[in-house]
């Protein structure tokens, strides 16, 4: 279970040499949320609303300026996310994994898929040597619908959808409990998007994954998630069960978002 308790994060504004030290922008302001084990939690909002910063705080990529983030794993151990110790971080990396938005940018184009997958495992507590890593790599690749022959290829040899499968496989290498998916279908074509969402649903059921699913796309978030939080200007302005939010958005901002989504005529 992932818990964010009144978490804030600010970044220094590089407004000028003298101003730099004093001016800040708050990317996340006192966000509190709780993601239960096995739940899919969606974060939705427009660009700059703090979704990605929240996600990065949740895996310890950033350290919060206020508040606390804790993660209770399946064994019942409590981890304090964002702690500095190398050992604690290696430990945490086996519980939470992160998938980035654009696989064309998050995968090194010069590395073979096998090296990409092994690199995701090497600096974690689950590293048991190259041999073990290779067999895990094959298993991870197969679980995302790719095959052994893809191990020796490089990212440019793949289509966008396949690249995102590789990125998901990399995250699965550590056999995480929780997957943070940051806009992972935003760069994909509509016809490929459904495949990746299906794959993720399948993996979620198979592996009992907890998911944090970030997207600017309301329809995708309310389809895919159990509960959804709506972010605006760094704050969590509304949180509800996905179906409840879709049926009855309460906050004015959520209603504005809903109204702005282009709609197709209802199917006959």
């Amino acid at each position: 279970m992932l818990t964010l308790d009144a978490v804030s994060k600010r970044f220094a504004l590089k407004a000028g040499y003298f101003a730099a030290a004093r001016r800040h922008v708050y990317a996340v302001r006192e966000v509190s949320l709780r993601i239960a084990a096995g739940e899919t939690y969606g974060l939705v909002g427009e660009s700059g609303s703090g979704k990605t910063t929240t996600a990065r705080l949740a895996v310890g990529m950033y350290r919060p300026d206020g508040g606390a983030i804790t993660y209770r794993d399946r064994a019942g151990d409590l981890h304090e996310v964002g702690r500095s110790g190398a050992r604690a971080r290696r430990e945490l990396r086996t519980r939470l994994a992160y998938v980035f938005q654009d696989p064309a940018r998050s995968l090194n184009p010069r590395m073979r898929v096998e090296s990409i997958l092994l690199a995701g495992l090497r600096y974690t507590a689950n590293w048991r040597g190259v041999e073990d890593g290779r067999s895990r790599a094959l298993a991870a690749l197969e679980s995302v619908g790719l095959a052994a022959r893809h191990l020796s290829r490089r990212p440019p040899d793949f289509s966008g959808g396949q690249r995102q499968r590789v990125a998901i496989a990399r995250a699965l290498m550590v056999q995480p409990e929780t997957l943070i998916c940051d806009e992972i279908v935003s760069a994909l074509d509509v016809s490929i998007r459904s495949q990746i969402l299906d794959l993720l649903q399948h993996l979620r059921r198979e592996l009992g994954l907890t998911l944090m699913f970030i997207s600017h796309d309301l329809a995708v978030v309310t389809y895919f998630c159990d509960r959804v939080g709506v972010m605006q200007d760094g704050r969590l302005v509304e949180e509800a069960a996905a179906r409840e939010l879709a049926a009855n958005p309460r906050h004015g901002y959520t209603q504005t978002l809903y109204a702005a989504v282009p709609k197709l005529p209802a199917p006959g």
Partner: protein
Amino acid sequence: MRDADAGPLYDVTGLTVTFSTERGPLHAVRGVDLEIDAGTVVGLVGESGSGKSVTAQALLRLLPPHALVNVPRLLFRGEDVVTMRPAALQRLRGGRVGMIFQEPARSFDPIYSIERSLAETLHTHRPELDPEALHARSVALLEEVGIAEAERRLASFPHQFSGGMLQRVMIAHALAADPEVLIADEPTTALDVTVQAQVVDLLLRLRAARGLAILFISHDLALVGQIADRLVVMYGGLVMEQGPAAAVLHAPRHPYTRALLDAHLPLGVHYTEQPLHAIPGNVPDPLHPEPGCPFAPRCAVAEGRCTRAIPPLVAEPAHAPAARATSSVAAAAPHDPMPAAVTGIVHHRCLLPGTKASLAAAAAPGEAAC
């Protein structure tokens, strides 16, 4: 609307564009016919690599030298664009035809103030204007696209605008020479949905006020459906289906259009209730195009003959009973969503159009490749 008597503004037949690349010829556009009538909004929809942007660039001969363009007929108001002399081409580009692009922030020179860049555009097309007139015209243009305090904002630089505001400034640029057609290539893709709605409103307002024809290019069928009078659906460098927007959206003839509509996630659907309609397979590789229908490898109803040769574009009346699997006699069904007024001709490239295709497509949801 301007003089609509002289036929279409743009009249394109058989456009093909091939890029020579290190890995061999890349067939980006493989025979596209397109007509844009005065004052109408044509929506060009397709996934990445379908050839929609390349088509748009070919309309203004903007393609780079390594693009081999072959087009038997490319007319703007009856004038041949292919043989157009440089001076006339200059008047066409940004003059009679305006163009806006996906990412406004990348389309501006960051060290030019808005006033300076607008003045440059205006001066190119209206060299007779003196500095005072340029300034007045610039203010008027910014006001027309809905920028408050236009006078003051002229002194600003691109980075001082938000994405949506900058897109408005770009539209002002495109309108500077009073074009007859505006080509908008994914103009809202980089914007948030609330801002997207504002930009679409603006485009529709300009179309009404100026009688502007718009070629609106997007990967988002729902968005294009909101703005377009006519829809052109591209896939694998070919037009799969085109016709009146309402007809294409309500009674798609081609399985690809059908599949795209099914893949669209309506608001309020939940995974616990409804599986996704995934389209198996991958988008076609323009380096190795299929000999037949480009959608055949992913199509639920494709037959052997679909893969042999590219099916010809056939014309059918838009109101023919078709498509919706739930209503066998679409025109008579009480809850049929098809508006009564839909008329015109739908062109599509399917050998097995209509009910059979839609039935099969509807019967095979959620077949993912994983």
